[in-house]
């Protein structure tokens, strides 16, 4: 057979396989959207769950997830950015830098359930935070720390050295240069990291199972030492262990859709910020 005919066949097979991969994504999103949109309403977003979580809304879960997103970022964002600044601007190539890089990569690769175990042992029990927003936020913060560090590092690396040198030539100190020249320029990409981190946090279930998430709470949390409901855990509960799984199914579709919208929004926002910068 002619090699160009083989090529045509192979390329078509590849094209179909790629289409299938995209098709799976469209299928998942379409499926959730189609079923979820039927329960999505203002009431669904702003009401408490009712009748054993088969009716009503998911307001406390949304509030809980937002709490965890904000809480983890309060912790992870400053530390991640500072860490990246030190790694990129102060630390020269060497053993220490490669050790820190290795450890950051390792942290990124640890399964999320292990973070859950660790958070439970350290924050919940050793530090006596109990199942709470603080414990969950700290656990999730450690989980997204590598993402923040890596995106910030990339952002700092993309700033040309001429800007730094120009600032030094004007007599500015290194710290002053970083604060007033390098960081402002890198900011859009640093913010991208923040948003991607928030997207990741909003969808994580395993780390909050034993550190923050509650099965059901009749009221909103009123301190950072309270347990919270969270969207991903709420979806898990509705899908597998609710009082009446079949009647709760529409609620589960709605929750899944809201959760996907959270993640989608974060991804789109990150892409948008990246695109206006370029």
């Amino acid at each position, binding site marked *: 057979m002619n*090699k*160009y005919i083989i*090529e045509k066949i192979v*390329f078509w*097979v*590849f094209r179909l*396989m*790629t289409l299938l*991969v*995209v098709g799976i*994504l469209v299928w*998942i999103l379409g499926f*959730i959207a189609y079923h979820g949109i039927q329960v999505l309403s203002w009431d669904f977003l702003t009401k408490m769950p009712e009748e054993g979580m088969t009716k009503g809304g998911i307001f406390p879960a949304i509030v809980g997830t937002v709490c965890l997103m904000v809480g983890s970022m309060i912790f992870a964002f*400053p530390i991640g950015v*500072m*860490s990246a*600044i*030190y*790694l990129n601007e*102060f*630390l020269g190539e060497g053993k220490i830098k490669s*050790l*820190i890089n290795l450890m*950051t*990569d*390792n*942290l990124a*690769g*640890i*399964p*999320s*359930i*292990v973070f*859950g*175990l*660790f958070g439970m*042992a*350290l924050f919940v029990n050793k530090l006596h935070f109990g199942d709470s927003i603080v414990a969950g936020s700290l656990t999730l913060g*450690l989980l997204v720390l*590598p993402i923040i560090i890596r995106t910030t590092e990339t952002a700092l690396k993309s700033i040309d050295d001429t800007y730094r040198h120009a600032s030094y030539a004007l007599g500015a*100190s290194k*710290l002053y240069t970083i604060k007033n020249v390098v960081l402002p320029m890198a900011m859009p990409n640093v913010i991208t990291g923040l948003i991607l981190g928030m997207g990741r946090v909003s*969808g994580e*279930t*395993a780390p909050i*199972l*034993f550190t923050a998430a509650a099965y059901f709470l009749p009221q909103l949390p009123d301190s950072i030492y309270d347990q919270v409901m969270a969207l*991903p*855990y709420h*979806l*898990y509960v509705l*899908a597998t262990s609710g009082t009446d799984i079949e009647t709760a*199914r529409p609620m*589960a579709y709605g929750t*899944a859709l809201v*959760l*996907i919208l959270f*993640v989608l929004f*974060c*991804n789109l926002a990150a892409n948008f910020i990246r695109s206006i910068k370029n």
Partner: protein
Amino acid sequence: MIKKYFEKLQIALLAISSMITTVTIFLIVIFLFSYGIKFFTNSSIEKGYDIVVHESNPIQKLSPVILQQIFDQEYTFWHEVGGNQDSLEILHFEDLPNYYTEEQMGAEFELVGACITDYLSKHPNAITIIPSININSSFKGKIVEVASIKFADVFTTQKWFPTSKPIALFGILPMIIGTLLVSFGAIVLALPFGIACAIYMAEIMKSKWRKYLKPTIELLAGIPSVVYGFFGLVVIVPIIKNVFQLEVGETALAGSIILAIMALPTIITITEDAIQNVPNSVREASLSLGASKWQTILYVVLPFAKNGIITATVLGIGRAIGETMAVLMVTGNSAIIPNSFLQPVRTIPATIAAELGEAPFGGTHFQALFTLGCILFLFSMGINLYVNYTSRSKN
């Protein structure tokens, strides 16, 4: 002067921040392993219970596995477990009222020890588990020592009954096999699609379209695992149930399919990067020799990108092994060793997620789950170190 110290302080603060990831890894190691190793100092017999036999019985020590088998009536003679030639009898403590009246046992059950002594003297070949509180002055018999949980036992025992009383069994072999099976299935499903998609994106597709496909693949990576699990539960599981005519659709296959979808973005992104990194001069050399584009890809580009593809595979496996929620929701979670993809399985992360909430803090079961966590941790470290090593040796 003060300004200078202030600057120094700020730099010190930055330096401390950069240490956080390293410190976290060390803390994770300390906490996971302190609980995980303590597990091996436990006995698997419930606290407050003792195994007793007649004084004349030569048995001194029994392992948890053998004890469980004894009470499962898998042995009929003492010599099978290292004792004498006599036949083995079991007294279940809850059957005691069948042999003795309430009066004989005492109003406060203070005479139970005497009853057991009496029973053992009549049945010298009997073995029983009794609450330690009954071992008082009226009791005469021998307490059998229960060997603590052994490293080798844990990895070879096929039974996981962490809450069974009075003897719990902690065999993690079913979970290890389950995890490997599901991940293996996932990677076998994902690799052809991942590589095909990466080749198509990097070599064949017009760059105009690639611009759209890349964020799409990233989006696939962004979908939370619990959503994948939910999708698997309401879509994939019923399909598997109908296609294979099964009673339950929650199987290893369902887990593999969902994990394959989840591993795709990792495989595609890294493979595509590897293919993009192949220098154009190599492609041009091949094309100028008259090779077709496909021949160039197959014989020149792919071998060149081999290391990257291996890295992609390893990271994909890593992602699959550590995945918790999706697998927990679709694989059925029964802790038996599966012999096909159409059986329910239970993975290590799913076990931790499902059981930690119910395990009493600091108990043997709790520690056993931390041991599972240690295994996962070591595995992910191994994968990261391997990837790090290969990528460094390439540079």
